[in-house]
């Protein structure tokens, strides 16, 4: 456990060094919520308080985009030869993968903390239990996304392929989910596809935790189960691929 904490410490430090990227993502989230969200919520009248629904979706989306950083960092490390160092130290591959996935989840929370706190303050959520549940939902999702990102990065072993797949995944995972619009308003095929999307359950569980628009949301128990399956699957896969596929020198 101590070694996992050390991996988390290292990854947290690395995120703090990427200030320009962080500021860019913050700026994006604030603009989306503060400008686009306000404008679009005036158009959408069929749903009560779409603005809050939208803002919550943007928070989860942004956390997703921070959690996938881990995969990109794996490529940076491979380019610098740093992967070999990580593979040479007395850490099991499991500790390395789990540490990095957990760090991905924590980093996303730390990164979005000011925006989440500001948002909760604005909508008047102060119940610690609800705040705690919401954070657990967000953390579970981003923990899984980091595992997914590690699995793909190590499995593909190609920065270009990873870029393409993550770009495509980013486009689909957001649009084929209930992050920005409820399943009830989606065309049937899209609604079906969105039921296979962890982002749907993460966004809905987040909203449910904050007691918002509950009649539009997926069942919270189902959401919780899906998120647990998601994060377990990709972290176990990440460990397996790391152990089987990753060799220092073969990346270069």
């Amino acid at each position, binding site marked *: 456990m101590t*070694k996992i904490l*050390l991996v988390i*410490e*290292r990854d947290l*430090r*690395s995120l703090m*060094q*990427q200030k320009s990227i962080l500021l860019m993502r913050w700026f994006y989230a604030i603009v989306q919520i503060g400008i686009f969200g306000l404008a679009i919520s005036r158009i959408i009248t069929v749903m009560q308080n779409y603005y809050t629904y939208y803002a919550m979706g943007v928070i989860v989306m942004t956390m997703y985009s921070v959690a996938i950083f881990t995969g990109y960092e794996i490529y940076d*490390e491979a380019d*610098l*030869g*740093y992967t*070999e*160092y990580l*593979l*040479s*130290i*007395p*850490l*099991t591959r499991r500790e390395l993968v789990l540490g990095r996935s957990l760090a991905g989840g924590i980093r996303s929370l730390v990164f979005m903390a000011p925006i989440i706190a500001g948002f909760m303050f604005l909508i008047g959520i102060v119940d610690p239990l609800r705040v705690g549940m919401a954070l657990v939902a967000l953390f579970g999702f981003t923990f899984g996304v980091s595992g997914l990102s590690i699995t793909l990065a190590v499995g593909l072993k190609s920065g270009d392929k990873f870029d393409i797949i993550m770009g495509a995944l980013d486009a689909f995972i957001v649009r084929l989910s209930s992050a920005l619009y409820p399943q009830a308003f989606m065309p049937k095929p899209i609604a079906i596809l969105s039921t296979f999307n962890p982002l749907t359950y993460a966004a809905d569980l987040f909203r449910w935790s904050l007691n918002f628009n509950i009649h539009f949301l997926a069942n919270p128990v189902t959401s919780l189960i899906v998120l647990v399956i998601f994060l377990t699957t990709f972290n176990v896969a990440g460990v397996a691929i790391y152990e089987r596929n990753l*060799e*220092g*020198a*073969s990346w*270069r």
Partner: protein
Amino acid sequence: MAIVSIRGLTKRYGENLAVDHLNLDAREGEILGILGPNGAGKSSTLLMLSTIIKPTEGTAEVGGYDIRTDPYKVRELIGIAFQEPKLFWFNTPWQILNWHGKVCGIENPKLAAERMLKELNLWDARNKYANELSGGMKKRVEVAKVMIQRPKVAIVDEPTAQIDVAGKYQIWNMIQKLREEGSTILLATNELGEADRLSDRVAIMYRGRLRILDTPRNLKDSIPGGDVIDLRTQNPIDEGIVEQLKRVPGVVDYTLVKASHLRIYLNRAERILPLIMARLNELGVEIASINMKEPSLDDVFFHYTGEVLEEADEPDSVSS
């Protein structure tokens, strides 16, 4: 007693056979120099021992643990200083050593990091980011990681490549100190002087295979007539004197360069020189000067591979 035991270790990158059924043992507490040009298979061997890459065939044991079946145990025993320092740009030397110490489970990593940074004259640079450090500083930080770890088996891969003379001495001292503290050291190098200076035994690798393994002294002595004595005399040397000298045991060959200049090829010159001197004295030859030269590891390398080390250099199959 062998602390590292390599058996039939092979690494293939596609068509390229980097390490070819290597068998090699490192004894506990020794500095084993692994000498060879780029592409000889040194780095691949060390990366396999460190469990960073997987062997295609064969295996190795480190401290009794198999690199294939007990890689974690092996990593607990091994510390590696890479040829290219592996320092992530956002880390400072202080953070690097402190974190490395913690991961390796050493006692009081902060104190160890502080001591090491001061010892290496890096204290003033402790809060600089890795990408702001000079090449020599990066290299010293890389070696310092192994120094604070004090592993059972320390692997140092070309530790002084691209380092100035003062830096080389500092790193050599660090390596010797590490051995004095109980580590076995595997030193990969393509610098003959470095291998000669530091190693208890030298393994010459060439094209993925082990060509010869012995002490530097024995390797040099293994070249027939490898030692050379240049003998200059006050009076001309005649055939009779040459015939007498040829009968001294250990003399392999000779060349009469000039009438008063004889070049003698022999083994273990330091032992035979007194005999030669005594014989010349008996023959009444007045000596003007004596110059004795033993073979270098370059001569050894040439003897066993047919190439000089620089000519044998070719791009490595792995860039570590």
